[in-house]
């Protein structure tokens, strides 16, 4: 039988504290955010998206960006990227001690206009300023492409558009490009051609996938991405972060479910699932909500019934 060339190790990029919390209605206290981040780090995650330096008018939840960044204990070999939508946000991030920033461009023109009020080209120009400044400060930049398989306004998004934006971000200096299925509509049928197109212009080891589980498709999409050679996966503890385009629907894929699958495939992550579940438990208790992770839910309940020998 033929084997897939699956990566031996997959880096999990935890986006819960930022992408997960940013749409929460009730403000999560800074101390809780910091504690969540610490627990995530304790589980072995090496990249935790800490916060976002956007205007508090747009994202009130993350108005405490500076305090969060200053409050987290910096562990060796752990990175805390923060979002910076423009030069101003970047300067604020640097002043607060950020060592890594992230920028977001859309593969869909309509989404770019409706989401960040400018065209793709205008956003790329903005980000070139950020990346030039980042290079001067020796700061790493991660690039995100949104709407890589579908847009809430335009519908289907052509893979060539995704490749174009990914390449632009890569050429301007992003060390990693995360490809996001913003509304979770993708299936392997669309994901694979999209990855084919992007991988023709950006090396596979510079790519990450960021799937939303809004239609329950995230793990299948992650699996084919691994089969295509991708070795970095974004996810959110407990599946924090709903979908702003389909109220009440789920959003981010749950880190626990991803780690469960990766470990089942024999892929190393350095993440301790039990400790990860502790972090998820912590934030869900605070938010007073059940976990969005099926693995975490199952493992919690199964433990009460019998010793898991698996």
């Amino acid at each position, binding site marked *: 039988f033929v084997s897939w060339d699956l990566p031996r190790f997959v880096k999990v990029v935890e986006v819960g504290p930022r992408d997960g919390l940013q749409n929460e209605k009730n403000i999560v206290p800074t101390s809780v955010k910091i504690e969540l981040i610490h627990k995530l780090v304790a589980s072995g995650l090496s990249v935790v998206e800490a916060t976002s330096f956007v205007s508090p008018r747009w994202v009130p939840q993350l108005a405490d960006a500076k305090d969060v960044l200053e409050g987290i204990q910096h562990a060796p070999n752990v990175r805390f990227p923060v979002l910076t939508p423009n030069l101003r946000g970047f300067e604020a991030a640097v002043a607060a001690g950020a060592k890594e920033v992230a920028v977001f461009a859309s593969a869909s023109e309509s989404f770019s206009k409706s989401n960040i009020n400018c065209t793709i080209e205008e956003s790329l120009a903005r980000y070139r300023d950020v990346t030039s400044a980042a290079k001067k400060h020796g700061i790493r930049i991660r690039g995100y492409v949104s709407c890589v398989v579908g847009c809430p306004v335009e*519908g289907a998004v052509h893979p060539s558009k995704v490749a174009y934006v990914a390449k632009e971000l890569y050429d301007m200096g992003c060390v990693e490009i995360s490809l996001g299925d913003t509304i979770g509509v993708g299936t392997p049928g669309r994901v694979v051609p999209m990855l084919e197109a992007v991988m023709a212009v950006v090396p*596979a080891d510079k790519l990450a996938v960021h799937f939303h589980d809004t239609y329950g*498709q995230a793990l299948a999409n992650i699996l084919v991405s691994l089969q295509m050679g991708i070795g970095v996966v974004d996810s959110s503890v407990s599946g924090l972060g709903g979908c702003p385009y389909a109220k009440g629907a789920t959003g981010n894929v749950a880190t626990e479910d991803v780690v469960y699958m990766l470990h089942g495939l024999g892929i190393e992550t350095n993440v301790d699932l039990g400790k990860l579940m502790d972090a998820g438990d912590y934030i869900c208790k605070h938010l007073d909500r059940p976990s969005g992770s099926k693995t975490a839910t199952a493992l919690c309940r199964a433990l009460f019934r019998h010793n898991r020998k698996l």
Partner: protein
Amino acid sequence: FQNFELEEGEHACRRRTYQRHPVSNRATPVGGNRHVLYASYLSQNQQNYRSFSASSDQERIEAANRIIHGLPRCVKIVEVGPRDGLQNEKNTVPTPVKIELIKRLVTSGLSVVEATSFVSPKWVPQLADAKDVMEVVRNITGVSFPVLTPNLKGFEAAAAAGAKEVAIFASASEAFSKSNINCSIKESLVRYNDVALAAQKREIPVRGYVSCVVGCPVEGSVPPSNVAYVAKELYDMGCYEVSLGDTIGVGTPGTVVPMLEAVMSVVPVEKLAVHFHDTYGQSLSNILVSLQMGISVVDSSVAGLGGCPYAQGASGNVATEDVVYMLNGLGIKTGVDLSKVIAAGEFICKHLGRQSGSKAATALSKVTASASKL
């Protein structure tokens, strides 16, 4: 070479002829057709570490071919909601509601709907109305309505009620067999052989189920050879199809692939179905690898009905809507109208006073009109 001719399935899906090359272990196309490759999970020691340099165009095309272009053109969905989905509901669902659910599922294009179970009402009070459900359902043409029959007595009752297809359940785990149906695997197979013989006499097809194919709540991991043994026994005794069930949903492609490899070495792939539970959120990726291995029959439950009896409150069956959504996205024909399955799911969830367990159904019902252009 081993030369497998994959015949036309129920939905006239032509599969391609392929050969398995003994040296490279790579299935090569015959006559220039695209090929289906069987994938294998290797132990960590053997896995190739992919060096992450920029892949060549050729490598990418080959990867994409392996991943999504060799999949079955059609997949048959076996809907188990009315039986597997409802059987553990605490509150008895009225017979007319069950029948209405079945009818709505049929309208969506599903060609196999597991209607009920002829087990003792002592064990499954929810399905005590099996006879009444069958009475109506037997008159619906063009659709198969398998019913569970745990023994000869159940079979006779099913046949008397007009059942045209029955299903039997054996476990790949000895401990689970004893705790679930109070007998050893061998004893259950003897029982089922009686059912199979009786069914044969009446020309009633029998579907076999194997439970605990990748994990057991008592024993833990289950050796693939156990699963192959039970699957082969069921197949040899006359089951036209054997459905492999991850009863507690613990499987991942890492355990599913070796299990399928073992079973496929003794039962033809076109006679196999997969029945994954979504308790750990793993079912769609498990279904995907199964398709990559050549499986073309998938069991699922509308709205994800049917919790996991081994982890209270955790989910169980994979939702039909989520499966159909993925298959549609892969360009695989199912004959099923997604919006009508969603409607059937809404109907039963309204009755149960619960939210759908299907993410696709939930998203589609909440999404704005413009987003549904996809």
